[in-house]
């Protein structure tokens, strides 16, 4: 059996034996990325929707900035969050550096613009359809945003899944602000990088399988949501 085949077999054994170390890393990854997704959703969904329904000076600039921030390099975000949270930084007193909270903050900053920009696109399109109805029904502004967010729920679910996919697969930012500390801040991507560097390909491969499985699940969920939306005429 070649090294590669051995590593492959060991990886499957680790996976199907529910290796505690592996489970711990996967669980932390999901906890960090789902927390970041929740926070980014709280920020990005209403912000994107508000930009879609309001007209104000500089709106075009905000939209350009949002779109530009979709492509922010994770290591740059990691560096900025590191500078904010390090002892000498403005938020150093909180002592969050090298904790899961720091990783959540970094991932939130990474995916909130993605969620906001995609939400803006989805909601602006729906707003075009609803705007005359809203004006006719005298729907106040504070009701427009939640109404649009609710009615665009199928599309926004796929937006959230895109954000989750980006967060869970990210390595640069969490490596910088989390430090890849065993049993504390080690997540799938940082563990894969470490185990590969150490030559422990089985562990890296097993985690890689989980990541690929998550990617397949996310994409499967997107397809299922789209089909459900189409069946229900997006209603």
């Amino acid at each position, binding site marked *: 059996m070649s090294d590669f085949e051995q590593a492959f077999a060991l990886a499957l054994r680790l996976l199907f034996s529910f290796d505690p170390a592996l489970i711990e890393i996967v669980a932390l990854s999901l906890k960090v990325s789902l927390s970041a997704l929740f926070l980014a959703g709280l920020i990005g969904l209403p912000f994107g929707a508000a930009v879609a329904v309001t007209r104000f000076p500089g709106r075009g600039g905000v939209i350009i900035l949002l779109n530009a921030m979709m492509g922010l390099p994770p290591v740059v975000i990691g560096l900025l969050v590191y500078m904010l949270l390090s002892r000498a930084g403005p938020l150093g007193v909180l002592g969050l550096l090298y904790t899961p909270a720091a990783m959540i903050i970094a991932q939130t900053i990474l995916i909130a613009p993605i969620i906001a920009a995609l939400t803006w696109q989805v909601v602006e399109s729906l707003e075009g359809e609803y705007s005359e109805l809203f004006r006719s029904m005298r729907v106040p502004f504070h009701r427009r945003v939640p*109404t649009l967010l609710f009615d665009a729920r199928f599309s926004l679910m796929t937006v959230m899944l895109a954000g989750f996919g980006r967060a869970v697969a990210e390595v640069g930012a969490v490596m910088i602000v989390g430090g890849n500390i065993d049993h504390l801040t080690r997540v799938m991507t940082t563990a894969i990088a470490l185990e590969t560097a150490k030559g422990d390909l089985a562990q890296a491969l097993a985690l890689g399988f989980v990541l690929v499985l998550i990617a397949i699940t996310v994409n499967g969920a997107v397809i299922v949501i789209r089909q459900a939306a189409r069946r229900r*005429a997006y*209603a």
Partner: protein
Amino acid sequence: MRSHEAAVLPIEARGLRYKAGGRALIGPLDLTISQGGITALMGPNGAGKSLLLRLLHGLIRPTAGTISFSGRAAGDGAPRQALVFQKPVLLRRSVAANISFARSLAGGGEHVDDILAEAGLTAQARQPARLLSGGEQQRLALARAMALRPQLLFLDEPTASLDPPATLLMEDMIAGIAQRGIKIVLVTHDVGQARRLADDIAFMHQGRIVEHGPAGTLIEAAETKEAQAFFAHRLVL
């Protein structure tokens, strides 16, 4: 005069003009609707009927002129009003949720189940609104407009794309609403519908009201050549 009508009538437009892209689309136009029931706005395509409806409803601002309801300027003391579009815009949710949304905007009113029953949509309450047939969608749009508890209801060719049975169901609903004392302004091309429903007709041509009078009189003995040609089913250019 019934209570709703007292808050609405007379509907007066004075010196109303609307320009877009340098073209005068409406006016100068003067119109006084002082009669309750159903007023039909009729005229050939491009006469400005739907535009006038939108101006009266406040969806668009006139370039010049004033609109008032029961002596009060539109905006300040406008009555509660609703508009049903030719192509219904339904929220992406269930039939009942569409009604609930309007009801919440009106701050209560008739129960959702009762509104749906009046529209003959009880069985479809939980269905996605956009999966209804064309006739059902338009009845839902009308029921949702009624959930806003309007004193004045604008209808923009609500049966234009419906088959005869669906049209009759809509007309029954419209007649029932008018009987409850809610003033209705209806845009229609359909002379038969105007004959069945309208109390008075305001006939438009090239952005102006050219004739306004009782429905029967106007259809049978219009005074202007444009209205005569229209009701005689000749092309009006």
